[in-house]
């Protein structure tokens, strides 16, 4: 068989590759208009009790990261540099542990709900909020930790998928895909391993990072 002959046959057969159906023009236009309105509208948040708790945790995370960044020594030298490093590590550690605890709570609840065939909208809202925290944490030195980094990357993906679930009708396949992905990557197991043991009210940072 000549090259030309092969390529001709290949192009012929390739035309059927993922052959698209008729364009669902009207349905997509409706979705585009709704999407643009949603993104353009100013976001008004009503603070539910669970959100207040969530926001306060996020604030702690932000403060922790900010302290960590501020205390990060540029040129460590001697005892004072070492002290600054310790304080910086502690700030990152506290922020990271609180973030990991919240994420673990969310994902455990989400998976339980998914198995029961329902997903509370609250999980979607919290996932959006935690996604911001995840990205923030990935930007700071704690996010560069070789043990924590792959976990954060997987969490970012899981949280993004939950955050993107539609508000009204939820496709079971989408939810199944998320839980399957969590199981395949052992996300919850790794997350729980990363959280140091001890009472939640007094998180120990040692071993978290």
């Amino acid at each position, binding site marked *: *068989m000549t090259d030309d*002959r*092969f*390529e001709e*046959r*290949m*192009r012929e*057969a*390739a*035309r*059927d*590759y*993922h052959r*698209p*159906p008729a*364009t*669902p*023009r009207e*349905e*997509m*236009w409706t*979705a*585009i208009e709704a*999407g*643009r309105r949603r*993104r353009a509208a100013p976001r008004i948040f009503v603070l539910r009790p669970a959100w207040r708790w969530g926001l306060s945790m996020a604030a702690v995370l932000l403060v922790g990261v900010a302290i960590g960044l501020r205390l990060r020594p540029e040129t460590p030298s001697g005892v004072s540099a070492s002290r600054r490093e310790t304080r910086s590590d502690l700030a990152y550690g506290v922020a990271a542990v609180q973030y990991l605890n919240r994420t673990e709570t969310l994902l455990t609840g989400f998976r339980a709900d998914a198995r029961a065939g329902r997903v509370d909208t609250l999980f979607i809202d919290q996932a959006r909020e935690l996604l911001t925290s995840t990205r923030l944490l990935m930007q700071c030195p704690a996010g560069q930790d070789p043990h924590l980094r792959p976990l954060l990357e997987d969490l970012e*993906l899981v949280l*993004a*998928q939950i955050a993107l679930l539609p508000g009204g009708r939820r*496709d079971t396949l989408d939810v199944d*895909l*998320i839980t*399957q*992905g969590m199981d*395949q990557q052992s996300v919850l197991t790794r997350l729980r391993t990363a959280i140091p043991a001890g009472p939640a009210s007094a998180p120990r940072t040692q071993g978290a990072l």
Partner: protein
Amino acid sequence: MDEHELIARVRAGEPAAERALYDAHVDRVYRLAYRLAGDDELARDFTQETFIRAFARLDTFRGDARFSTWLHAITTSVSLNGLRKTKRFRSQAPLEAADSVASTTRSAEPDLKVRLHAAIDALPDRYRTVVVMHDVEGYTHEEIAETLGMEVGTSKAQLSRARAKLRESLADFAGEWAS
């Protein structure tokens, strides 16, 4: 009405012009998204996201390239990023495994098209995109280069490598194809 005028009217906030611009391009955008995704739901999501982004960023379109090229660049970017995220959560066989699927014996998989499609699926993203755009959707190398932000020569080289890979995967069908 020519496209420049239409775009100017969209920028001025005319809803009818937005719809006209959408109608003029949606078929090719959806086709490209579907060819890359192979799934209706994903293709719809990618198409919708493409237009939402395009309308939001229309001010950044300077008119150096054709509008369709600019739009298809957004389409490929949205689709490939979306697929990467989706694929990470699907139990995908690695490329080597896909190769072995594509080169099983003829009796196991008699359909050449199915074998070819599996082999295309197994190509790395950058090669698959060039094959889809050139061999499936009929884009020229110049259009592909502009859309994907690469040199024309790179587009040609990637297509050539992709075809070589496909030929290798389908080597046991050489006789069949020649007949």
